[in-house]
């Protein structure tokens, strides 16, 4: 069954969620919360953002009513799946005083077994990138690994692109091609509302046995293909990645960094919403009696002053150096470190930047200035 395509009617969609729940999965999917699409626990199809879509522009995000009842008619919200695979706050271990010595007790809490509903292709690639960061080097993050190896992924192919999306430039979408258990394409016609479902794994096939499906006809498959192709043609942004590493490495002293620093608030929003950003800090705390200590890991950001602090001062004291660090890490040094770009083109950093700084625009400005010089 792997590789096969089937149809699920909208009216049977609940059955898919039921099958996952029955299998013991903690089912996470898109919901409308505080005026945004937020991934959180879902019990039924009614929890999904039925009939909602989102508008994205630099520094602007808005939910809007659609004129249909689509379940996945939005693009991406501020939070990515990383908050489940790599929690924002995590206790790494506790230590107890035992006389003069102490004993370290690792956090071995069994993490939840998640099923993610509605993972976009760019987000899948972000997960592959974090796999490389956390599980492919000399050291492995056991907490990430424990969560990651248990997830069930229901991908959703994008049939509409957001105003800040550029997955086509980054070759990460809009169609999910690998790494999912099931991939859906939502199709709404005058009379019908259904999903073309591609089976990615045996695990996916097994879940589908509990769900009424029909064999997908060539017409259905063709329709799905066309809708995805439409999304590909309507990317809100573009990023020319030709020799981008070399471009950025040779422009570390470009005046554009000074210019962007006059706008950047170093608020760290971009790093929090980015699905691949992985920096953390740790806090060591004790209880009031001083007999129990704990180490807690938290998301951190290269935009804070503390991040690069060493005795005598912060290495990256200026906003310029911190923005430069972030952008060159995403698009250049990440390639040296992990053999892949650190950007999947999801557009979140553009949408959620309070002053609308646009990563694609910053790169364009640097590239353009070189072209102007050589002309």
């Amino acid at each position: 069954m792997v590789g096969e395509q089937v149809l699920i009617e909208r009216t049977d969609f609940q059955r898919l969620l039921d099958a996952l729940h029955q299998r013991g999965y903690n089912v996470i999917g898109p919901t409308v919360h505080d005026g945004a699409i937020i991934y959180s626990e879902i019990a039924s199809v009614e929890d999904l953002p039925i009939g909602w879509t989102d508008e994205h522009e630099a520094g602007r995000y808005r939910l809007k009513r659609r004129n249909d009842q689509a379940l996945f008619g939005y693009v991406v919200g501020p939070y990515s799946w990383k908050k489940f695979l790599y929690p924002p706050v995590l206790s790494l271990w506790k230590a107890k005083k035992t006389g003069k010595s102490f004993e370290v007790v690792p956090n071995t809490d069994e993490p939840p077994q998640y099923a993610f509903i509605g993972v976009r292709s760019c987000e899948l690639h972000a997960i592959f990138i974090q796999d490389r960061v956390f599980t492919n080097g000399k050291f492995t993050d056991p907490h990430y690994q424990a969560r990651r190896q248990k997830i069930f992924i229901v991908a959703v192919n994008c049939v509409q692109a957001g105003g800040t999306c550029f997955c086509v430039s980054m070759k990460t979408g809009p169609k999910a091609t690998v790494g999912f258990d099931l991939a859906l394409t939502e199709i709404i016609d005058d009379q019908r509302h259904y999903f073309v479902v591609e089976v990615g794994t045996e695990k996916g096939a097994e879940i589908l046995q509990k769900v009424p499906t029909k064999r997908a006809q060539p017409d259905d498959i063709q329709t799905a293909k066309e809708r995805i192709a439409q999304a590909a043609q309507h990317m809100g942004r573009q990023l020319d990645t030709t020799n981008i590493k070399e471009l950025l490495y040779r422009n570390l002293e470009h005046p554009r960094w000074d210019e962007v620093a006059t706008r950047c608030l170093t608020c760290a929003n971009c790093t929090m919403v980015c699905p691949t950003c992985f920096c953390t800090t740790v806090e060591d705390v004790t209880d009031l009696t001083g007999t129990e200590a704990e180490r807690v890991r938290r998301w951190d950001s290269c935009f804070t002053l503390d991040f690069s602090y060493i005795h005598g001062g912060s290495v990256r004291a200026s906003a310029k150096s911190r923005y430069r660090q972030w952008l060159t890490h995403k698009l250049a040094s990440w390639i040296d470190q992990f053999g892949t770009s650190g950007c999947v083109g999801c557009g979140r950093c553009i949408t959620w930047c309070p002053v609308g700084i646009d990563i694609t625009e910053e790169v364009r400005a640097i590239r353009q200035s070189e072209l102007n010089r050589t002309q």
Partner: protein
Amino acid sequence: MAVTVKPQQIALAVSTDPMLPVPYRVLRVRRETSDTFTFEFGSVDGSRFPFAPGQFNMLYLFGVGEVPISISGDPERPEILVHTVRAVGTVTKSLCKLKPGDIIGVRGPFGSSWPVVEAAGDDIVIVAGGVGLAPLRPAIYHILNHRGEYGRVVLLYGARTPGDMLYKKELAEWRGRFDVQVEVTVDAAKPDEWRGNVGVVTTLIPRAHFDPHHVTALVCGPEIMMRFTILELQKRGLRDDQIYISMERNMKCAIGLCGHCQYGPNFICKDGPVFRFDTVKEIFGKREI
């Protein structure tokens, strides 16, 4: 070119957690200067601590915090773990109050090492500034333990004042040897307390005895000191790939996962702290990298 990634096979076995500190007991404390102490530690369970010269550990003080500190002992005596700590902030100040019998947590050893094996056959010039001598001491021990394998050996050490010098007894011992050239200088001293060289450590380089074409240089100290040292070594005719430096950045994990120690494409905790200079020269000295 956008590099796209394929999903990886996620290994099924959860490996042992490199974030867990292991308890070590303070055996001895030696005061080096007014704010710097050398500690000898022994593992609580009696296990040995093999390491390579230049590597570092994360030292954890119960409930206070954890900091990267180089290993400063003899690599051929793995039964004791030695660290030299300068009190500069919250954790290091508390570390410097440790007494024999106290327990700390240790994670490590981490990072790259000085090329003491690769450099066999060469002359060696070691240039250290301030506490920068601590991460170099294991290399010095190794070289002296295997003295016959090297050509001429030079140690150049600079401290701010005579009172800031580390390992005074050993420096005197090394100076007494005929097979090592040891030169020490201080930035400033009162006339009655110091009769040696005055000036920054780079002023010692022109008179160091080594063959510039067959020498390996090991350099550690503040970044500015390393910058000028490299310039002087280059003046003596050294190529960039003969020079090794040790870098310092904020570190939280020491295992390449927290992102704090990034230095251009490098993670100092795993690609460094010791770098061959030619591999970082494009970014070395660039402001705020």
